[in-house]
């Protein structure tokens, strides 16, 4: 075996590990095994990104069949970056799971939990790695089915209801995607994305292509949870086990954003999507509404997980907004925000998991006085929150910088103002959290609370430290994102 098989290994490893994990009946073994797998995945994704940045696109032929007939895994700057984000999040969240899962999920199911989690990981990595449209559908369903199960494992009965709701919406979305892919296949006779993009360009004015575009866009927007297709998200994130919320918030919607980028830019091409189809006119208002409404609703939440779930809807709005500009700065902002938001929101949900672990609640009122009793957890929560606001020196600022720049370059200063207004709205809900944690006394008779165990704190802080680091050292994230943006727009790199 040589490094040449890395692209498939990235997907096959968790797929093979999942059933093996189920066979390990002891929770500790299953956890240790999953952790090892996730670290191996991270190592491989770093290698892949280094190779792609150095040598350009890697094309891997599955089973040796040449594209467009065989399935091709095609890795460029954009999806390598996405793969890196997913595996990095997994590598950080998995070690955290041991305590959190032990507390929130009843014992006999632990090996099953880790098995399903590995399947979810397989699906997400597969979506990112593959260069085949139908493969995207299959992997999306693998990851979604696994996520329904993971969410349904939450301790409250509402978790089951939330998972069911997500299952219905998710399946409709995926089936829409399937219709779109079917129509494309009908018109072109190919499923390979690179090949599709060439052939779609030959027949852009056919009605089925329009229909395919519409079906695919809507299907993906459901996965992405862009307003108004977001209603599954708050319930799912609120009632899922803490570690699952963190993992899904950091990875699942991000992959949705990636699929949108891939279809809109690589497959249909910016010219088709934005000039023949009114994607900008649809996406931009929806994103702006998502930013304001998502953050606005978050202000009124008392359950912190729900609060930050609504905040996710707003943040997804930023990503979609960046895509809607179809310009280098806009796409750079969107891609950077995919990464930055993954770090921040993942870290926040992990911190909430720490809080859940010690206090058994994530209500806003349970925060009172925790600033002194769980200083590290609370500091993590605050740093993540400030990142969501986009305070300078956090990575959230970097994303917003590029988004506002894109708006100003496009002479859309009202949009720029609305982006900044979104930050202010975010400030209100983050401000409530800060005030509750630091400036309100604990209720009399509150049980003594200790700081969360270090095994949970370290992963939390790794994600948030990353979000701070990349707020200062922007060259790494931004250069990858810029390269990806130029590639998606078809500009010479």
């Amino acid at each position, binding site marked *: 075996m040589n490094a040449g098989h890395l692209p498939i290994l990235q997907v096959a490893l968790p797929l093979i590990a999942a059933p093996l994990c189920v066979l390990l009946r002891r929770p500790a073994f299953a956890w240790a095994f999953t952790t090892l797998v996730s670290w191996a995945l991270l190592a491989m994704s770093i290698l892949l990104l280094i190779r792609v940045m150095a040598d350009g696109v890697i094309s891997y032929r599955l089973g040796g069949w040449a594209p467009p007939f065989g399935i091709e895994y095609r890795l460029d700057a954009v999806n390598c970056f996405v793969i890196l984000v997913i595996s990095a999040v997994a590598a950080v969240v998995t070690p955290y799971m041991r305590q959190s899962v032990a507390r929130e999920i009843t014992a006999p199911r632990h090996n099953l939990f880790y098995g399903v989690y590995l399947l979810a990981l397989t699906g997400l990595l597969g979506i990112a790695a593959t260069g085949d449209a139908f493969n995207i559908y299959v992997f999306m369903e693998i990851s979604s089915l696994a996520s329904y199960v993971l969410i349904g494992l939450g301790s409250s009965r509402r978790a089951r209801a939330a998972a069911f709701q997500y299952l219905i919406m998710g399946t409709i979305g995926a089936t829409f995607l399937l219709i779109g892919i079917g129509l494309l296949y009908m018109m072109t006779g190919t499923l390979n994305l690179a090949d599709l993009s060439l052939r779609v360009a030959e027949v852009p004015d056919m009605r089925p292509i329009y229909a395919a575009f519409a079906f695919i866009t809507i299907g993906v927007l459901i996965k992405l949870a862009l307003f108004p297709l977001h209603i599954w998200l708050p319930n799912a994130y609120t009632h899922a086990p803490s570690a699952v919320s963190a993992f899904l918030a950091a990875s699942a919607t991000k992959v949705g954003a990636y699929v949108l980028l891939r279809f809109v830019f690589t497959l249909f091409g910016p010219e088709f999507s934005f000039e023949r189809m009114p994607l900008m006119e649809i996406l931009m208002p929806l994103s702006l509404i998502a930013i304001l409404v998502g953050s606005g609703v978050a202000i009124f939440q008392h359950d912190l997980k729900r609060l930050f779930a609504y905040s996710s809807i707003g943040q997804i709005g930023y990503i979609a907004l960046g895509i809607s500009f179809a310009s280098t700065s806009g796409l750079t902002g969107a891609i950077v925000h995919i990464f930055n938001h993954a770090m921040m929101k993942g870290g926040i949900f992990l911190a909430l998991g720490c809080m859940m672990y010690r206090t058994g609640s994530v209500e806003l009122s349970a925060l009172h006085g925790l600033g002194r009793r769980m200083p590290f957890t609370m500091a993590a929560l605050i740093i993540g929150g*400030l990142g969501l606001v986009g305070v300078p020196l956090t990575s959230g600022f970097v994303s917003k910088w590029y988004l506002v*720049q894109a708006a100003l370059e496009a002479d859309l200063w009202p949009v*720029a103002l609305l982006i900044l207004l979104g930050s202010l709205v975010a*400030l209100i809900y983050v401000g409530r959290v800060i005030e509750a944690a630091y400036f309100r006394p604990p209720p009399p008779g509150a049980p003594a609370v200790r700081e969360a165990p270090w095994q949970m704190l370290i992963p939390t802080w790794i994600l948030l430290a990353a979000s701070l680091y990349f707020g*200062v050292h*922007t060259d790494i994230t931004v250069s990858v994102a810029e390269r990806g943006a130029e590639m998606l727009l078809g500009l010479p790199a």
Partner: protein
Amino acid sequence: MSGGALILLALAIPIGGALLLWVVGRTPFLRNEVSLVTSCGLLAAVAALTPSVLAGARPAISLFEFAPGLAFAFEVEPLGMLFALLASFLWIVTTIYSISYLSANGEPHRTRFHICFALALASAVGIAFAGNMLTLFFFYEALTLCTYPLVAHSGTEEARRGARRYLAILLSTSIMLLLLAVLWTWVAVGTLDFRAGGILAGQVSESVMAVLLVLYVFGVGKAALMPFHGWLPAAMVAPAPVSALLHAVAVVKAGVFTIVKIALYIFGLDAIRDFASGEWLLYVAGATILIASLIALRQDNLKHRLAYSTVSQLSYVVLGVAIANAHAVMGASMHIAMHGFAKITLFFCAGAIYTAAGKTHISQLDGIGRRMPVTMGAFAVGALALIGLPPFAGAWSKYYLVLGSLDEGDYAVLAVLLVSSLLNALYFLPIVVRAFFPTGGEPRPVAGGIAEAPKLQLVAISITALGTVALFAYPQFLFDLLRPLVGM
């Protein structure tokens, strides 16, 4: 040691001090020691930079690139030097003062207090030495965030409400207006460096420049230009040392400093002066001066009166910038230092009165001068300095502002300056008179047992009060430092 290294040292000292404070946390003795040593260290580092800046050098250092062509960079120029010297010198005095204040009033969370204070100073120094608008913006926001816990310090409902208002106004103006202006400048010009003569001139149309001026001036909410001044009175719920150093010196001066800096290095003075639609700035500044003074007249709470007086005095600086000639800008820059010394004295006195007598309102101060002669004496000095009477500091800056307005032949501005001096006298002198010569002879002696404030507080008060005299007597240093700024 090179200039660049000294800049980093000046930033690292307060940050390191904050870390150390966090470590020694629970031992009160070490906590005070560390705070004192840190503040002295900061002054030493800043002072070490002064000779080279006086000699015309511009020490600079660039750290990392935020975007291509946009680095996180520092450069020391005279105005920043002045601001950094002012903040770091007064920090030492405030530390002495606050050690005594906190223990005498039994304030909780003292470690958090000192840590946030140190971080606020680091941010102020960062603002002073920022080499471009982006770096300045970073530290500007950091300063807001570090001072928020200080305002909310006591954790009462009132403090939380005040702090919320503080944060809301400062952050919303800076994000909605200032950040937009910064980004707009970046997109339009492609640089955010501070350059003598400005970077906008000739690059953008006059109408864009007019909009940018609005965004910049109101975006710097810390300058407390009306109608975005409401955060300053709200911040008065903070303990006295915070009001003294931060809300009379570091934070508010950071605001007007930023405005002067933007005027000099982003727009360029010529652009502002020649600029037909820029006249509104004069009116806004003038109106703020007068309206804030009138509001101050009606305040019975001593700290609130001082806060509105600050709002009014800050607009002197903005006014100087709006006049935009050499004399006026010289006056404006000097006023940053002069008002700093005078106002910190007044706030120290307010805190001392609260510590010694528990009084917060002016109507309670009848005859208190007999019991606290040093405190009220210093109060009189600070008040006279703000009115602009010799031999106290404020006289010079007002003199130059008047010169500046005469240069332009703008008698309305002159009238504003004179009327406002009168108003200053009207709202300050009654306090002094009341304290020393209570109406109707000596009424019921103010609750028995009031004596002078603790010694350390008196030391601090005396230093700053003497400082206002010294600044009047030896202004040469300020002239030398600021001369290159305005090409005099």
